[in-house]
């Protein structure tokens, strides 16, 4: 027997009920096959021999003694680095439904000990803020029923596409066309864009699946979907392929991957869809990209031109430049020139109360092809928890304010605004996207939704999984470890991409038809929106309904 006094506990000693997820294990069902312990990405569970003492007292014979039962069982580890993340892979592989994590409804103490070894808590995922978002609460309430028979979503013809790229005012367009002068390039694209997720953040199989799916949407389904690369370049075979036209190449403050891109320019068969210059990210404003060493594999190191296995933190801003005005001007012009002024170039900034000043700057830059604003609910492969949860600006009011600013200047058609950050975070992707479009966005970028819907990402708003940063993604979506990413078949991902965009297309029609819209995307059709929150209605300048 060990006396209670001598049990060693540290300040960070925890028990399973202190952890955010508690493993429930049913010994009566367990076959001890070991699948759960081998699949667990954080080794939170282990098979172990246990001994149970059975006191024995024979009163008639006045004898006391013990018997011991030995058994094999699954146990949960309680040290911080091996705490259960709730991914549920154990239940997925268990043949007998004997095991699974359940969220700890109690206030769990682990939160106070996540900052080990002087490091603040870093994770992947998104802001863990469950519940309906402002976008989820917006309804489309201006139903057209006064005139000719309403539109039929199933039979009418709909124009759902949007424009990416700088658009000239009509007078200037006609003048330049007559004079044979340069007209800024534009792209007609589907308004739901696969947002920036880098080749590095995503596994090769996930990336390949997305690209296959995007190509299928364009070439077979006639849905002109484009996808953005994120920082970190693009595989050379893609750069030199005809699929490049479906890809928005991102340049960010680390400039990773751009050696390969620049070198590939002479061999490109077509132009990329656009160039995105990342100045900020909604999930971690003021912070640069971060690819942690776990994920810098041989392939990634080659693409990015760096040694293997080192952390790749990008600076928070484009360091070589003096101010954002100068940066925006020089970078947009440089990138435009690099691609012969045939490719739209636009900046991506994080949602912020200062977004309007960047916008006003872009309005005066004749080469700026749009602006993407990324709100606080956006996802990331790796960031400090504090940035994810508490830094940034929700997308709805930021986008609306910028749009109304353009309306006041009469420039709303010239600089297309794109919105990102939490679109579809509760699954309502088309509803969220269309609400933003009617608030003034020309289109939306979706990242986490795509990971969940096409890759089967296990993350949720309750802090589940959130380990994209460490390369142990149990589904193989954000891992560079072949043993993990081979779990993901690119063909299956591509199939899901097609499923997702076909259903978004149908849902867009189901929203637009009752509003009487089919000829053009209802950008800025704010008279169709209502919300049952008077303050939000006032802020967004839409109708309050109850």
């Amino acid at each position, binding site marked *: 027997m060990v006396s209670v006094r001598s049990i060693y506990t540290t300040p960070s000693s925890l028990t399973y009920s202190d952890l955010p997820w508690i493993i429930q294990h049913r010994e009566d069902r367990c076959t001890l096959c070991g699948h759960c312990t081998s699949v667990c990405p954080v080794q939170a569970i282990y098979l172990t021999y246990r001994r149970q003492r059975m006191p024995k007292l024979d009163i008639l014979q006045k004898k006391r003694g013990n018997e011991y039962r030995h058994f094999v069982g699954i146990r949960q580890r309680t040290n911080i680095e091996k705490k259960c993340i709730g991914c549920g892979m154990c239940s997925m592989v268990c043949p007998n439904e004997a095991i699974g994590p359940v969220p700890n409804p109690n206030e769990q103490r682990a939160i106070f000990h996540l900052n080990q070894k002087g490091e603040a808590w870093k994770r992947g995922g998104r802001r863990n803020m469950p519940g309906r978002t402002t976008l989820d609460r917006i309804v489309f309430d*201006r139903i*057209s029923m*006064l*005139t*000719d*028979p309403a*539109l039929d979503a199933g039979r*009418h*013809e709909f*124009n759902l*596409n949007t*424009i990416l790229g700088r*658009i*000239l*005012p*009509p*007078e200037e*367009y*006609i003048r330049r*066309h*007559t004079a044979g002068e340069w*007209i800024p390039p*534009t792209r*007609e694209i589907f308004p739901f864009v696969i947002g920036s997720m880098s080749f590095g953040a995503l596994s090769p199989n996930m990336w390949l699946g997305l690209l296959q799916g995007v190509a299928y949407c364009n070439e077979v389904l006639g849905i002109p979907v484009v996808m953005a690369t994120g920082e970190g370049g693009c595989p050379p075979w893609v750069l030199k392929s005809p699929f490049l036209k479906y890809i928005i190449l991102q340049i960010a403050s680390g400039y990773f991957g751009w050696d390969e891109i620049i070198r590939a320019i002479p061999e490109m068969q077509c132009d990329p869809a656009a160039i995105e210059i990342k100045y900020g990210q909604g999930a971690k404003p003021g912070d640069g990209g971060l690819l942690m060493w776990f994920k810098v594999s041989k392939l990634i190191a080659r693409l990015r031109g760096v040694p293997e296995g080192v952390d790749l933190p990008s600076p928070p801003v484009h360091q070589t430049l003096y101010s954002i005005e100068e940066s925006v001007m020089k970078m947009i012009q440089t990138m435009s020139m690099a691609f012969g002024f045939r490719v739209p170039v636009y900046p991506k900034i994080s949602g912020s109360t200062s977004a309007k000043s960047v916008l006003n700057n872009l309005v005066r830059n004749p080469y700026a092809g749009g602006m993407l604003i990324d709100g606080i609910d956006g996802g990331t492969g790796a960031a400090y928890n504090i940035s994810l949860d508490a830094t940034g600006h929700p997308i709805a009011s930021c986008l609306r304010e910028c749009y109304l600013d353009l*309306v*006041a*200047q*009469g*420039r*709303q*058609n010239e600089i297309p605004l794109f919105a990102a950050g939490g679109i579809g975070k509760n699954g309502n992707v088309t509803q969220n996207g269309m609400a933003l479009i009617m608030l003034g966005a020309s289109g939306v970028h979706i990242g986490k939704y795509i990971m969940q819907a096409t890759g089967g990402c296990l993350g949720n708003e309750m802090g589940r999984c959130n380990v994209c940063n460490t390369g142990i993604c149990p589904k193989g979506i954000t891992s560079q470890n072949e043993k993990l990413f081979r779990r993901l078949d690119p063909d299956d991902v591509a199939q899901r991409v097609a499923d997702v965009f076909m259903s978004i297309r149908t849902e867009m029609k189901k929203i637009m038809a009752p*509003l*009487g*819209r*089919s*000829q*053009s995307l*209802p*950008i*800025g*059709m*704010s*008279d169709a929106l209502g919300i049952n929150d008077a303050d939000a209605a006032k802020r967004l300048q839409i109708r309050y309904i109850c």
Partner: protein
Amino acid sequence: MCRLALKSADTPFSPYEILTAMEAMQEGYDGSGLGLLLRGVGFTDFNYQPDQIILSGIAHTEAALQRLNSFMGARGYELKYDHAMEVDSSLIEARDRFKYLIRVYKVPNRDGLSRDQFEDQLMQTRLTLRKDGEDHGGDLTVFSFWPDVIMIKEVGWPLQIGNGLGLNDNRIKARVIMAQGRQNTNYGINLYACHPFFIQGISTMTNGENTAFVPIKEWLIGKNIPGYTGYQSDSEVFTHILHYVTRKLHLPLAAYKHIITPLKTEELDVHPQGDFLKGLRTSCRRLIIDGPNAVIATLADETCMLVMDHKKMRPATVGGKPGVWAIASEMCGIEAIVPDRDTSLDFQPMREHTVIIPPDRKELVIWSQSDPFTLPQAA
């Protein structure tokens, strides 16, 4: 649902003729208002010269009329003729109608103003008068102030309004008359909300609903072009778009349909001017209407036009014979206006067509959107 009728004839005719034709289209119509626009006008009591300026509107009070008189006098507009209507107020629903204004003014000295400057001045005068009325509790309503254009708008059943205003007395005749029955779709009852709408010689009327109204309106207001105001009706943007296309962009009439209902990319890919039109569609993206709509327009030279939104399921019709043509939202309207025509030549434009009745009224011009159009300066 609005009912629309337009007649264009070599021989001037009374507006009452159109009102009786509108009775043929009364089914499905709520009789909430009437709007009339007359061009090529003549008065039996006055020898009107087509360059003289006509003010159309309503003075709701005597004070408003006096303000109008002093305003016009101060700006050198000399009143040549004041058409006195034989009003039977028992047939008019509204009570606050002191005087219906159809007044002819002598063209003042242009003082070296260019034609455009002069026309801007006429519009500014109308806008100032309208503002003056609005600033005084709406006691003065001004529909148009332009050479050779009379506009009448009133709340009620069209034929009853015609009787109430004595339009059956044949004292006014015109070569082109646009008539619209109904007050407003979706928005409040307001005299300014009644079609046809007018700006600088250009007028349109519409039936249908324009669901893209708010973004279009926001864009037009953002252009800061004088006269792009009002918007009590979602149909007013059609007039301003036509004004913008022809007078600001200096594009031919055929471009109007390319702007309000552009062709799809696949169709533009095979269009002879597809490259130009794709860019135009992008630049004018905020002017794409979303109907279903039939837009009927008239221009200062008495050209009449009918454009259909490509999803209109109940097309408007054009029919007639050399010298007399009619456009109406229902086929029975054509029948009532020009009964002695060859009905087999009636035309219902569908998704890609624009129909023009040229000022000579000899034959219809039908443009297809997939045909090339003359655009020497741009395409």
